[in-house]
């Protein structure tokens, strides 16, 4: 019974999803591209005019943009390996046989950081890392350490952002990888354990192939999230001190909603989107191919 489905039914099923995507995703994107080709300033709307690629030219020749981009990529280069490393360790520990109750408890507590609103994490950080009244310095004080200037020093402020991001997102990586580990068929893993007692061999040849799809998802999601990291940093340092934590999305916000230059901000956002897509494609090409 190989009856062709009528196009009407196909559209009835696909239509709502396509429509939603068009309204929520594609229309704003097209509008952003349109805006990026215009002088479009919210406080000067009478002078909107087509200026071609001038916004892109000024973004690409702006030191502030390249500095912010460099800072963002540095952050990505540090937090992503840390999150994957810690996440893998946690997942492997929880995957050990005989930790049933502990596993349930840990899984529950792992959800907590992820469930905390980004902006709240930043506000908490402002209080906890306060040089004088913060609980972090109080804690180190018990061991006789001098108070550390966490958010008032450029390097430390960057480290604080790294700490918070790793704290918040390692659990996500751990849970995804743990789910990947549970898909490894028990008999294969058992057979492998009879073959070798070296855990990294099992990891490399038995478990890793099952982890790759999850890992690629983690890479893509965490890369996109880190590139657009905003709320936590905005509430914690607002990009400061100086420009130490001014990541690309803070720069875009500053351009679009403080200077109200929506055209320039859209150009920055489109370039960021292109970068995200390129990175995602690279991940898929280099990592995902292995399992195909």
């Amino acid at each position: 019974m190989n009856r062709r489905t009528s196009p009407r039914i196909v559209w009835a099923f696909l239509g709502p999803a396509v429509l939603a995507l068009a309204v929520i995703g594609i229309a704003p994107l097209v509008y952003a591209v349109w805006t990026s080709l215009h002088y479009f300033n919210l406080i000067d709307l009478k002078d909107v005019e087509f200026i071609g690629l001038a916004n892109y030219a000024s973004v690409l020749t702006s030191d502030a943009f390249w500095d912010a981009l460099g800072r963002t990529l540095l952050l990505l280069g540090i937090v992503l390996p840390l999150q994957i490393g810690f996440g893998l360790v946690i997942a492997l520990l929880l995957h050990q046989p005989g930790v049933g109750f502990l596993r349930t408890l840990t899984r529950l507590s792992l959800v907590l950081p992820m469930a905390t609103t980004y902006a709240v994490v930043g506000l908490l950080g402002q209080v906890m890392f306060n040089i004088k009244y913060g609980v972090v310095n109080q804690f180190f004080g018990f061991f006789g350490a001098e108070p550390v200037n966490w958010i008032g020093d450029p390097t430390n402020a960057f480290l604080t952002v790294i700490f918070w991001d790793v704290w918040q997102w390692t659990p996500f990586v751990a849970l995804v990888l743990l789910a990947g580990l549970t898909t490894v068929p028990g008999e294969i893993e058992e057979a492998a354990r009879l073959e070798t007692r070296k855990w990294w061999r099992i990891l490399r040849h038995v478990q890793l192939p099952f982890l790759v799809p999850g890992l690629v998802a983690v890479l893509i999601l965490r890369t996109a999230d880190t590139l657009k990291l905003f709320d936590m940093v905005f509430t914690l340092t607002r990009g400061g001190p100086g420009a130490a934590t001014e990541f690309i999305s803070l720069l875009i916000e500053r351009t679009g909603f403080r200077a109200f230059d929506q055209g320039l901000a859209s150009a920055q956002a489109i370039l960021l989107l292109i970068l995200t897509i390129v990175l995602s494609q690279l991940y898929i090409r280099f990592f995902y191919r292995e399992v195909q």
Partner: protein
Amino acid sequence: MRKRTYRSVAAAVLAGALTLGLAPRAEAWSLEEAAQPYSGTTVDVIFLLRPGYEAAKQMIPEFEEKTGININITEVPYENALGQQVRDFVAGGDLDIALIDLVWIGNYAENGWIEPVSKFMDDPALHNPNFQLDDFFPLLVDAFGSWNGVTYGIPFDNYSGLLFYNECMLEEAGFDGPPETWTELLEVYAPALTGDGQHAFALQSKRNETQSADSFARMIWPFGGSFLDENFRSNLDSEGSLRGLEFRQDLMEYMPDGIVSYDHAETVNGLAQGDVAMITEWSAFYSSLANPETSKIADCLAVAPEPAGPAGRKPALGGFSLAVTSQASEKEQAAAWLFIQWITGEENAREYLDRGGVPAIEAVYEEPGVAEEYTFVPALVESWQEGVPEFRPRFAEWPEISEIVQVHGTRIMLGELTVEEGANRIGEEMEAVLEKAGYYDGEKPLAQ
């Protein structure tokens, strides 16, 4: 002759009747009657999370009961207030009252988002005859509510920078009063008050409006500096501006570590906990510093005008006015005006003050007992005589320039840039913004 007398009497009676006829109408203006046609109207307004707004919120039920007008408040943090309002105006949203920081007035007025007050004050049905602009401190009406000679906003949440200090700490160190000048503060008071984990001074300098307004602008003006010269070119490389910024670097030696991460909360807390001897802060923080529940030094708290520099006192000036928006319907505009007139006017000024607000009505500060009960009042009144309206330029480009000052201002403090490098960098970027806006080719008048 008799006829003439009659005629004169009749004329006098007529004149009297006319005068009386007008006078009782003025006397008889009542909020309830004026508001009758607008009963049931909802007025949308944005409020901040600050004491002046808390005070107003406590008073609003009375207004609603008298008028039947509903006041719908959306509360936002300061950092979001400008963006949210601009988006609302651009999209033709719901806001009927604009909340205007003094540095936003040029932007709002030039874009035609707000109505001049004359529109309502010329309408006898809406204008309370007891409400006059002369009742307000002239500096505040000028700076907070006026642009290019037209008044749009009525001062509502009013600040001046003040020197708050811990009198007990100063006495212990042998001082019987606060420093009169910044130089005295640095050279005489600061060394004596710093040590044992305590610091003489804290200057809120976080990278946001705090850096540009509370820290950067506060230091350049008293030393004879300013952001712009008369041609709207950068004046930050002038001797006065550089001297002020150098002074800030010198004073940092007597401030707590990490001062570039201090916002208002940290600074006020530093004084309230007894860790810092002096701060320069907005008058609005008086209530939390004087309250024993939030301040360990409530008994030692004293207030003075900000110290003077070589160019005079020039204290920080800030505050918000309320204006009727152009996008509101006629009914909403009328209702909005009635509310603005009620909440800012002389009739309710004392209640607003007692509930924690700072009104802009001159007469309320002359009432017996006010200066004794609110010890910040004399300093505040003195500051409002000496303030500079363009303490921060009030044109539409300020938010963008402020961001530039915030980045490089903090970098100067951290030593990443020298004072001169930083001032030049800000100057160049500021001029680029002004050039793009059309100030240099005569497209825009040089108004700030």
